[in-house]
């Protein structure tokens, strides 16, 4: 792990100077605000857009705070993850393809340190983004609908952040293994298509985000919860391990 602090500094500088620490959390914040707001003002919006037939009235379901947080997490799961995927899928593969990695790989650097430094910095961005997204959603939900219980809310947040760690590990592993195009396709399949498996089972990593919400609703079957948590952590560690091995193996893919 020689050189970790130096590589961390490099990754941090890149993320900071390309505004990633700012713009990605802002996007998550907007995503978090949108569902509580639009749902609350749905009737007004429908009336404003107009052309509703006389006497037309739809009965909107009564929402509890957990419903809105769940909707916000749904936004993070679609647009949020797409933003993370698009922003970081080239982290390793693009550096190889454009030749910037050459001057680093030619030194006897530790690939573990290099991979981990990227993982840590992106995870930090993921953390700030999750905080921003949750804070925005919870703020509007509290103002417009009602309060959360702080304990389960925090548990839900931590659960979601751990899921994000897996997403980031998968993105980096794909980037270490393939060129950017194939990596993007691969990561997309694993992260998004895998979510269909949650229809069948509750104990897979893809169930973790919704399992977090079930904690708030106090409807989680805890054995499934811990299984999904355990598998997520395992998959994350495995992804990181494969990523480091492949990054080293693909040294000769650098443009010289």
């Amino acid at each position, binding site marked *: 792990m020689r050189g970790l602090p130096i590589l961390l500094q490099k990754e941090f500088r890149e993320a900071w100077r390309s*505004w990633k620490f700012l*713009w990605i959390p*802002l996007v998550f*914040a907007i995503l978090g*605000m949108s569902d509580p*707001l639009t749902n609350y003002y749905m009737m007004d919006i429908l009336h404003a857009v107009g052309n509703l037939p006389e006497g037309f009235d739809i009965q909107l379901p009564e929402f509890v705070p957990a419903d809105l947080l769940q909707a916000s997490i749904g936004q993070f799961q679609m647009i949020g993850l797409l933003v993370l995927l698009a922003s970081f899928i080239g982290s390793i593969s693009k550096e190889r393809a454009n030749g910037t990695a050459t001057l680093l790989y030619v030194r006897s650097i530790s690939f573990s340190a290099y991979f981990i430094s990227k993982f840590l910095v992106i995870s930090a961005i993921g953390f700030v983004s999750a905080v921003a997204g949750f804070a925005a959603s919870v703020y509007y939900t509290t103002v417009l609908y009602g309060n959360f219980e702080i304990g389960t809310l925090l548990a839900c947040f931590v659960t979601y952040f751990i899921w994000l760690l897996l997403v980031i590990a998968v993105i980096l592993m794909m980037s270490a293994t393939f060129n950017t195009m194939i990596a993007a396709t691969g990561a997309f399949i694993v992260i998004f298509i895998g979510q269909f498996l949650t229809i069948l089972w509750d104990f897979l990593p893809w169930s973790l985000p919704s399992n977090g919400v079930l904690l708030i609703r106090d409807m989680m079957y805890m054995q499934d919860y811990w299984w999904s948590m355990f598998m997520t952590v395992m998959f994350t560690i495995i992804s990181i391990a494969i990523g480091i091995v492949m990054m080293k193996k693909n040294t000769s893919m650098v443009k010289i």
Partner: protein
Amino acid sequence: MMEELAKIPWAVIAPLIVVQLVLMIVALIDLRRIHTTNGPKILWVLIILFANLLGPILYFIIGRKQS
């Protein structure tokens, strides 16, 4: 019209507007500082200003040119 505007709960949606504005301004500042973009800069100004939330996102993901 004025009546309609007055009915909008500004106190509630102000944070959303502020965050959107900050995102837009950050994108514009970066666009001004950056050396080259993928595609003409003026096009990105328009996208950032008028494509709402998507504009700044698109700019940061595909507009910025590194190296």
